[in-house]
């Protein structure tokens, strides 16, 4: 077993996903299959091999410290599922 139901539940919580009992079953089986498959990477010796983060070796992509136009407030709020014209409104953070 590469991953148990409990672990899947923990990961789901980390990712803020709620899985029904059925989904948990299915996902656990599927994730287990997939993780078992990706374990084949262990066949390769990667000692001393650089991890690749970017496809090429560019660096120093900078911009100057200049102020540019912001969005008008109504545009910034326009897609908000719940907003009061000034701010986004969410259930209270305890």
């Amino acid at each position, binding site marked *: 077993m590469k991953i148990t139901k409990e672990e899947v539940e923990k990961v789901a*919580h*980390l990712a*803020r996903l709620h899985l029904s009992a059925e989904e948990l079953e299915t996902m656990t089986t599927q994730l287990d299959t997939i993780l078992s498959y990706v374990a084949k990477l262990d066949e390769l010796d990667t000692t001393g091999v650089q991890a690749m*983060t*970017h496809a090429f070796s*560019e*660096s*120093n*992509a*900078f*911009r*100057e*410290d*200049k*102020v*540019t*136009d*912001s*969005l008008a*407030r109504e545009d*910034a*709020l326009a897609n908000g599922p719940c907003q*009061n014209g*000034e*701010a*986004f*409104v*969410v*259930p*209270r*953070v*305890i």
Partner: protein
Amino acid sequence: MKFETVIGLEIHAQLKTESKIFCGCSTKFGAPPNSHTCPVCLGLPGSLPVLNKKVVEFAIKMGLATGSDINRINQFARKNYFYPDLPKGYQTSQFDLPIVEHGEVEIEVDGKKRVIGITRMHMEEDAGKLIHDDREPVSYVDLNRTGTPLLEIVSEPDIRSPEEAAAYLRKIHAILRYLDICDGNMQEGSFRCDANISLRPVGQEKLGTRTELKNMNSFRNVQSALEYEVRRQRDILMEGGTIVQETLLWNPDRNCTESMRSKDDAHDYRYFPCPDLVPVRIDDAWIEEIRATLPELPEARKLRFIQEYELPEHDASLLTNSRELADYFETAAKACNQPKKVSNWMMTELMRELKGEELSTCKVGAEQLGSLVNMVETGTISGKIAKTVFLEMMASGKGPETVVEEQNLGQVSNESELLTIVRRIIADNPGQVTDFKGGKTKLMSYFVGQLMQKTKGQANPALANKLFTQELAG
């Protein structure tokens, strides 16, 4: 059982750039909610970050000012967690490859000097602000602040007391202000501090369980919170109890630390290199370019004050505590060429009248203070009158010459003018004259006092003395 306190401080300094770290939105404080946002800092789908070069420069400056190593290659990483003030669901920060490492600052507590190590400094973006409604069970999200550049400064756990912690904070604050890369305003949130604190039996190498302290928004609060926590932990350990590793909030109203409602699990931030940002490569040429722009730092300035102005260390130390204070001193000292006198004025009258307010609010300009000191030196006014003048200057913002003229406070040093009054006093006080001539020399102060009364304190005391001596002789 004697316990040793071990403290580490984490400072978040908002960097004084015009625009945000990854987009061109303004960083100006106090704008209407959600009016300084764009697709990038809102984290809209499809948006991408581009690094503000000035942020890198500021970080390098701070690294150089603390004798740190500047990492030639550094990379941004994503710190993943969910919170309503974090629109992307991750904070772009630095993890494996921070820009600065292995620095140090010197602090002094009770005359004892110590070196506190700085583990690392890294660049990151600030989150937004949450405001909680008092009545409804809702919170309001203002994303203006998201994307404001921060420099996180992490100390080694070298600090051994709450006093040292305050001194370290003040030192870092001073350097940031000297470099002018941060406003350093704890109330406005441009300078924030969290602390980690643990106790261990003296002689033990292993660190004790630590607690994290948050919500300390002034230097005083930091010290109070740490003092409280030291006592709290010591009490528990003395009774053989164990410290729970937790995050505590300082409650300034009740002067105690309170446990945060326990978060379900420790955060797993799943740091990984941010694929949207390419590495930052810093070469020697760039570092030297920046080094050349460094201003004189607190330590160096203090030493120069001692040498150049012949000030005692105590004075030099106080005056170089902040860049503003040091600048003020030098301007005033140069205006009158009396550094020690200026120093005295600043450390007593000025500090007292400021009453803890910022120097920038002071109505007395540095040159004006210099002029005032000069007026005492040249005898234009007496030292005593000068204090009165100073108070008026503080209140009205008027220059010393103006005040003296308006209130007619100029020291009277006109011999003939004074002579007239001296003779009149002698004429009016025959008894005292006889006693004085008979040997009661202490009566000189009576005569001078009379002169002071008649001239509203403006008579030049030395001259008064001389004239009375002259007239009463023989």
